[in-house]
């Protein structure tokens, strides 16, 4: 298995290395970008999300819906995606919020809506400072979702026969691909799941983790998996589990 993806990836990397100049950013440069987090334009998006949740009764009502005290909310949010009995499936924060809105007699925001982006980003930010505590052993549903997510991550498909694993595996971490170092998605590395949703500088907007997966699939010429689908949620489960133990810090700020 190792040798197979190594060969495929080396072809991809070789073509990209020849095509563009490989710039390596210095530590001093990286420090300058980290400073930008202090005033992340996404802060205003989060503020809008807070207002939207406020109009639904705020954290108090959300905690009630989840049968929790408000104090327990952050830790619970840091455990998504979760299997929720009242919904009957493994869900991300946004799908949970759709169920919340329904119980309040409100028409749920669409997953692709601006409102859902802002509000779910705010809710996820409540978990800031908590360790990601997703539990893939919690029940059969989570176990199945993790297995499916792993399968989605590792399956080669599309025009180039690439899988997520080809570029996101420990052997190629920090290799420069299209001027960017490939991140270590695990908790001991970049812990990517802990910093999405993120404001993307090149798009001047906020994107969720699932939306980022879709962008990545587009670039790798893989058929895009729909937001909120069983496969996409499973992929989020797998990806989040990789970052288990890392401290939540959203919104991120990315290229």
């Amino acid at each position, binding site marked *: 298995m190792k040798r197979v993806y190594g060969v495929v990836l080396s072809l991809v990397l070789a073509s990209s290395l020849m095509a563009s100049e490989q710039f390596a950013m210095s530590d001093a440069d990286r420090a300058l970008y980290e400073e930008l987090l202090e005033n992340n334009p996404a802060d205003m998006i989060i503020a809008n999300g807070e207002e939207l949740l406020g109009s639904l009764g705020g954290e108090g009502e959300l905690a009630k819906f989840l049968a929790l005290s408000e104090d327990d909310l952050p830790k619970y949010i840091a455990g998504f995606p979760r299997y929720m009995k009242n919904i009957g499936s493994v869900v991300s924060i946004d799908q949970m919020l759709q169920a919340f809105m329904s119980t309040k007699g409100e028409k749920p925001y669409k997953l692709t809506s601006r409102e859902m982006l802002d509000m779910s980003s705010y809710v996820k930010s409540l978990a800031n400072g908590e360790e990601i505590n997703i539990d893939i052993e919690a029940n059969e549903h989570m176990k199945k979702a993790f297995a499916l997510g792993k399968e989605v991550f590792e399956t080669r498909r599309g025009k180039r026969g690439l899988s997520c694993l080809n570029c996101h595996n420990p052997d190629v971490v920090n290799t420069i691909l299209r001027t960017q170092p490939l991140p270590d998605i695990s908790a001991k590395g970049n812990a990517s799941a802990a910093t999405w949703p993120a404001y993307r500088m090149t798009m*001047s907007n906020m994107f969720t983790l699932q939306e980022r997966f879709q962008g990545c699939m587009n670039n790798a010429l893989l058929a895009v998996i729909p937001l909120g689908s069983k496969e996409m949620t499973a992929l989020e489960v797998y990806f989040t589990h990789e970052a288990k133990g890392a401290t939540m810090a959203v919104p991120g700020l990315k290229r």
Partner: protein
Amino acid sequence: MKAMIKVKPDKFKNGDVIKVSLMAMHPMETGSRKDKKTGELVPMNYIKDVKFEYKGAVFTQMSVWETVSTNPVLTTYLKVDGEGDIKITLADDTGKTAEVSKQIKPKG
């Protein structure tokens, strides 16, 4: 136009110099970008004037150009001299304006 003031640090005394940042949601269109759907050029539309006041007196004025990033962040500094309001007024080239205020209270 949504705008926000951020002050750093949280706690300060009289005489300290604090960092005052204005964040705004604004497209800052240069007029050279093509709309992907219509193929038409999106007209120039950017925040051009920002005025920072403290207790009614202007301490910084900025002329901002369309070359500043979308959803701009503008940071200046202020020497604290008593409790008072920081008020920031902004205007874009279409005549839209916005105003944000933040009360600051030095300790000691």
